[in-house]
């Protein structure tokens, strides 16, 4: 079997190792602390746990907790803050004049980082010694780094190299300091808690307070995640709007990124993408809502228990299939099938469809994906309509379908609207089906058999292409992301409000 030459990893691995080492040492201290704390507590009362305020293991846990938790918090904080400090110090070294036309300080900084990482890699792979790395001049650097598999685009300037050297130096010092501070913190925590291990010490209360903190921290991760999403979207979007006018982004009717990768000549209007997104979602809902709704009505109102117990899990099976499968189904099965019908030499002879990827392809498949989503939500909602409503209507001599159409559905309408909004939000945010099934061309067309593209598909293509991370072509993905986030969030919030109101009505 042929083994491909492994793409050289930057200095990351070494860095990770030292972090892992620190982590291991801290955890080791915690484990030792547990046993020592426990033993000390027991020793103080001559081995009779009844003399202690809390169970012995709480004394052990207290020591372990004091050793581990502050140190870990520090470690995480350090990992976040160190790069920021180094970045700002190093970017201060780059003179304004070195930032050439059509470039930006962040582009240069990514060069700096790449050079620094490359040098790290070179040293760690033994291609050069640390001393050689320090003496390297700007002409030799490109070659040297190519040797370890780090390709540099532009030539390395003297400023970049100097900055890179400074970057390495600061990172090195930082890492040593990090190890000292964090292990020191663990030791101090250990010592303090160990010293406080006396029979009267209320270890359980302290440990429980600590556990409570951990629980609160875990719950706060939800907030942090949202914050992370919002901040990363906003920062990069602001960066994008510095390079590209916002008005163009929101109102331009064309999407045409240049492929040079470094700005200039790109047209990045969101409207054609939004059009594609909405068109595909619309077709998907056109498929999913009637089928899903009728399936739900049948299952909850008509189906016998045995039919229900078979059909419902089968429908849920559709919901459990990953979207990549639907994407492939669209690309390789549904698309070609539709071309056979609506394409050039198709069965209908209408020549509406040029290729397999089209709004119709993606919409149809997405509709199939959404059927179980709509049906299970509607099922819940229809079942929430009280039986008394059905009895009332049937007792008046209404047929079952009259009851459903004229009493149950109107009663369930708000809930069903909520379900449809949720489905719409799903459709708008769906990625794999459109990436594979909708096509890549941004187009403002009415023909559902045309290939079009969507917001999500372009987020993917802009961030997986070759364009530099700091270029408007890549950054636009964040502006698209924030638009997507706002739209889907809005839909979700409205839908959930409606559904909650509806539920309360029948509580």
């Amino acid at each position, binding site marked *: 079997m042929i083994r491909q030459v492994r793409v050289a990893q930057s200095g990351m691995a070494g860095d990770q190792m030292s972090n892992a080492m620190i982590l291991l040492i801290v955890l080791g201290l915690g484990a030792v602390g547990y046993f020592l704390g426990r033993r000390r507590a027991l020793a103080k009362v001559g081995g009779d746990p009844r003399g202690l305020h809390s169970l012995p293991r709480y004394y052990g846990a207290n020591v372990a907790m004091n050793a581990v938790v502050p140190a870990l918090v520090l470690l995480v904080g350090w990992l976040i803050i160190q790069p920021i400090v180094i970045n700002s110090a190093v970017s201060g070294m780059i003179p304004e004049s070195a930032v050439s036309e059509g470039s930006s300080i962040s582009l240069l900084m990514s060069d700096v980082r790449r050079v620094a990482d490359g040098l790290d890699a070179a040293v760690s792979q033994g291609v050069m010694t640390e001393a050689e790395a320090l003496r390297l001049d700007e002409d030799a650097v490109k070659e040297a780094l190519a040797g370890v598999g780090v390709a540099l685009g532009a030539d390395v300037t003297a400023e970049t190299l100097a900055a890179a050297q400074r970057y390495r130096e600061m990172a090195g010092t930082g890492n040593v300091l990090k190890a000292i501070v964090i292990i020191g913190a663990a030791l101090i925590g250990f010592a303090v808690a160990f010293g406080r291990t006396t029979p009267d010490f209320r270890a359980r209360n302290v440990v429980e307070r600590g556990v409570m903190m951990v629980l609160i921290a875990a719950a706060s991760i939800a907030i942090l995640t949202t914050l992370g999403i919002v901040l990363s979207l906003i920062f990069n979007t602001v960066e994008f709007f510095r390079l590209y006018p916002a008005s163009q982004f929101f109102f331009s009717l064309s999407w045409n990124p240049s492929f040079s990768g470094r700005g200039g000549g790109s047209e990045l209007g969101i409207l054609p993408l939004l059009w594609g997104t909405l068109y595909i979602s619309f077709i998907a809902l056109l498929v999913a809502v009637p089928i899903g709704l009728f399936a739900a009505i049948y299952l909850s109102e008509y189906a*016998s*228990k045995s039919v229900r117990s078979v059909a419902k899990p089968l429908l849920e099976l559709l919901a459990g299939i990953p979207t990549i499968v639907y994407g492939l189904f669209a690309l390789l099965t549904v698309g070609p099938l539709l071309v056979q019908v609506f394409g050039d030499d198709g069965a209908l002879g209408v020549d509406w469809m040029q290729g397999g990827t089209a709004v119709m392809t993606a919409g149809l498949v997405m509709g199939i994906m959404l059927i179980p989503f709509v049906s299970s939500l509607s099922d819940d909602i229809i079942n929430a309509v*009280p039986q*008394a*409503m*059905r*009895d*009332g*209507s*049937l*007792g*008046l*001599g*209404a*047929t079952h379908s*009259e009851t459903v159409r*004229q*009493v149950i559905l*109107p*009663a369930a309408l708000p809930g069903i609207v909520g379900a449809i909004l949720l489905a719409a939000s799903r459709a708008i945010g769906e990625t794999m089906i459109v990436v594979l099934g909708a096509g890549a061309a941004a187009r403002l067309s009415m023909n559902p058999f045309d290939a079009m593209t969507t917001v999500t598909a372009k987020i993917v293509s802009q961030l997986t292409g070759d364009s530099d991370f700091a270029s408007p072509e890549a950054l636009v993905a964040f502006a698209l992301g924030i638009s997507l986030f706002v739209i889907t969030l809005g839909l979700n919030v409205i839908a959930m409000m409606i559904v909650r109101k509806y539920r309360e*009505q029948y509580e």
Partner: protein
Amino acid sequence: MEDMIQMDRAMSTQQDIKIRANGVQVYYGENHAIKDVSVEIQDKTVTAFIGPSGCGKSTFLRCINRMNDTIDICRVTGDIRIDDEDIYDPRVDPVQLRAKVGMVFQKPNPFPKSIYDNVAYGPKIHGLAASKADLDEIVEKALRRGAIWDEVKDRLHAPGTGLSGGQQQRLCIARAIATEPEVLLMDEPCSALDPIATAQVEELIDELRQNYSVVIVTHSMQQAARVSQRTAFFHLGNLVEYADTDKIFTNPEDPRTESYISGRIG
């Protein structure tokens, strides 16, 4: 038991028999809920079903308009005739039957629609109105007969769920009589109502007797005594005693009836 029914029959010949049940058995799966019940219910009379909880009053009532069809596990055998037509005949469409035999439920269950639409619902689906004006007239008449017209005439298009409990129940009665049924079944129509609303509904039931055969299930002996002319006492799925209301309450024949009336079982 047999001769009791014979006696009843003799008594009721003066009145038309509207509903005639013979040997009715009802099963919920394995549970035998109604055991061989035979009864004759007269036209233009209020008949009360009384008995301890779970004895099958509702079940029997629901047999009369085949509401039990909506429960999967429920099985009915025997013979129930309305105007001498077997309502369990395969040719009978329960939809048509239920138009003829209206029902009012224990808890008021107005649809989440306007008051007007609640009442108009039945006439609309049965096609009783030729025009909008016709429908208006039917709605008004039903609401008047339901003794609620004066309270709602100014807000016919407000939601029916916004009414008070008693008003809602009268609305449901109005809704049931809007389809011009011949029999009206009421399953504890007052149990969710306060005494004033109960009095209003009882008054209404007494009026309805002019036109309909009314069957009412109730847990209140006083109510049965107040509104009904005939009373049937059910116990553990059996029809124990069926006679004129006065007789049941003053001089019951069966010891079980007596102990129930005097509050010893139930």
